[in-house]
């Protein structure tokens, strides 16, 4: 029996992502010293007509909170990574390595480069957590 898919860039999707992160021992180990919050911005594309701001507060190998920000200006997270839906789809389906995504500017990063470059393994585990969320992309 196939799992029911949830639509990417929705509150339901990010809640499942949050749960997968907190179930992942690999992520807990890789990100055990990480302290920092994010906006993952999903830029409008296809059926997504407005950009979506997914907020995540990642702390010492756990997700302390994750939600769709209705008012993006209400927070100023330490890091912002943005890309259109199709690029996020490539990342989540493991067709685009996040580092290559940054090199080729398919993923755009704002934030402390030194800190993010110390957490590539953690980022990789984060991506693996997304693959465990059965996802339907609004394309």
């Amino acid at each position: 029996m196939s799992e029911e898919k949830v639509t990417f860039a929705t509150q339901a999707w990010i809640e499942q992502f949050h749960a997968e992160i907190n179930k992942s021992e690999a992520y807990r180990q890789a990100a055990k010293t990480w302290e920092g919050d994010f906006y993952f911005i999903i830029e409008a594309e296809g059926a997504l007509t407005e950009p979506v701001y997914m907020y995540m507060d990642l702390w010492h190998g756990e997700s302390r909170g994750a939600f769709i920000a209705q008012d993006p200006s209400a927070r100023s997270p330490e890091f912002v990574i943005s890309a259109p839906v199709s690029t996020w789809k490539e990342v989540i389906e493991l067709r685009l390595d996040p580092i290559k995504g940054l090199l080729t500017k398919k993923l755009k990063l704002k934030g402390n480069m030194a800190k993010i470059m110390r957490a590539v393994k953690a980022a990789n585990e984060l991506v693996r957590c997304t693959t465990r969320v059965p996802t339907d992309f609004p394309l």
Partner: protein
Amino acid sequence: MRGYLGKILVVDATTGELRDEPLNETYARQFIGNSGLAARYLYDLVDADTDPLGPYNPLIMMTGALTGTRTPASSRHAFVARSPLTGILGEANVGGFTGRELRRVGYDGIIVTGQSPVPVYLWLSDDRPPELRDASHLWGLDTYNTQARIVEELGQPRARVACIGPAGENLVRYAAILNADARAAGRTGMGTVMGSKRLKAIAIRGRGEVPLSDKERFKQAARRALIRTQGDFSVQVLKETGTSGGMDYFDMVGNVPFRYWTQGRFEGVDNLNGGLIAETIATGHTGCWGCAVQCGFEIEVPQGPYPVPQTDGPEYETLCALGNQLLIDDLGAVSTFDLLCDRLGLDTISTGGAIGFAFWLYNNGLITPDDTDGLRLTWGDPAPVIELIGKIAIRDGFGDVLADGSLAMEKRYQASGMAVQINGLDPGMHDPRGMSGMAVVYLTSPRGACHNKGDFYQVEAGHDFPEFNIESGDHHQESGKAPTVARHQNYRAMVDSSGCCQFVNMPFRELPELFSAAWGEEVSLDDLYTAGERIFNLKRVLNLKLGLNPRQSEIFPELWTRPLSEGGTQGFVPDWQLMLREYYEYRQWDWETGRPRPEKLVTLGLGDMADELWSDHEGEGC
């Protein structure tokens, strides 16, 4: 010929004679500059009987074709000679300031032959004729003090100095030449050749400009190139986190060596990371002339067991060669090793290779404290490393053994095939079991197992060059990857010849524009790429002339044939023989002899070399 200074300074260190020689414009047109042009000169001057430490082995300092211009990060220049470490082409590429200064004083390059009876240094200034000056009082000084003393005694605070330290004087076979304090022309023992000539330093102060055909067109192209390079993600990473900013990623994919290439995982790797350096011990950035990246760190470690005064910090290769590889994760300790190597004038990669191999021999029972002057070589212990670096530089006791390099150590201790080296050179710190393309790079690099004559690990990390059909694939891909490696080597030879730093990833559309504006004739990207391929093949032909026997030396070290049970390599060992065969086919190199086929050489405009190379094969010459 616009774009060049048109002069080479020829120095006979034996007689003290100095003379100007016109730049060979045919060579310059074919091989552009830097190590390519220098290799072409070297081809005429050496053969298989040339003693690398004898008077007839020339030391050639050559600038890139764009060195010293407004081109971003165009400080690069090369020192080239027959290597005393490998016996084949020796070349060490470096930034800093002396390349730019050489062009400002009016020369494209310097060729030093002979051997001076006493220590000397070369002084070039545009307000007086070149001269060799006595350096007896400088002999024995470290590189930092040598640079400072020469600047002081010349009364020329803006003079730039490239020099050797005690390691070069003592003919350690992997001695470096340093300028701008710690910018090292490190690989293949070019400092050793300089020491053999008793040439302590080259000091330069120039005020001139590189003559360009169309200054305004050049300026505009350089400005566009600067803007484009600054938008490059890897440039931003380098700017903020230095060359070791990618350590976490490289560890994840199995690129970083631990315990002399025998261990796949090391917790301490997280402590040797550019991001951590930036956040803890960095006090500023350092870099080369004309570079907006400034990828070097200035650091200070005020406390702890290994305090370090404010100085240049270790970069990726050093952090791995003298840190991860030895299971040492103390940033203060590794920074201390780095400072010692710089001051003594040692290549940190080959120093780490020799010390790492000594640790491996010791911990596998092949040598004992009786061999090591009583030192106990325990993985993770910084104390013997400090001792060994000092001993190597002055060839003291066990240090004298290490000073000849890991291949010589392998022979001495009857550990055939166990040193991790190819063609006599210790590899850069990029494990080919993590990124298979590096296997081909190391096997075929013109100066031994070098990571920079095609830094394919950058491609493997995702840095594509679609203009040349260079695209990253699976890290463990075997069949089909070698042609991409070859194209990348050609591309890098092209960039090298320009004198631009490979870290800035010069935008393709601007490079031909810069050359066209400099030379006053239209130069295409294809022209430049073909020059890169020509240079790569020239170096191959030169190495064959020097006695390279590829079928005996292009062999994977034993330790690389063993899978690692944990870590990012995931137990992978590349099928290096398959990849090498495919590489030869793509290159049009003959498998049995290792020679480029005559038709390939003719296509590249190297028909005269084809005749010489294939003269023993009736009917295959041209």
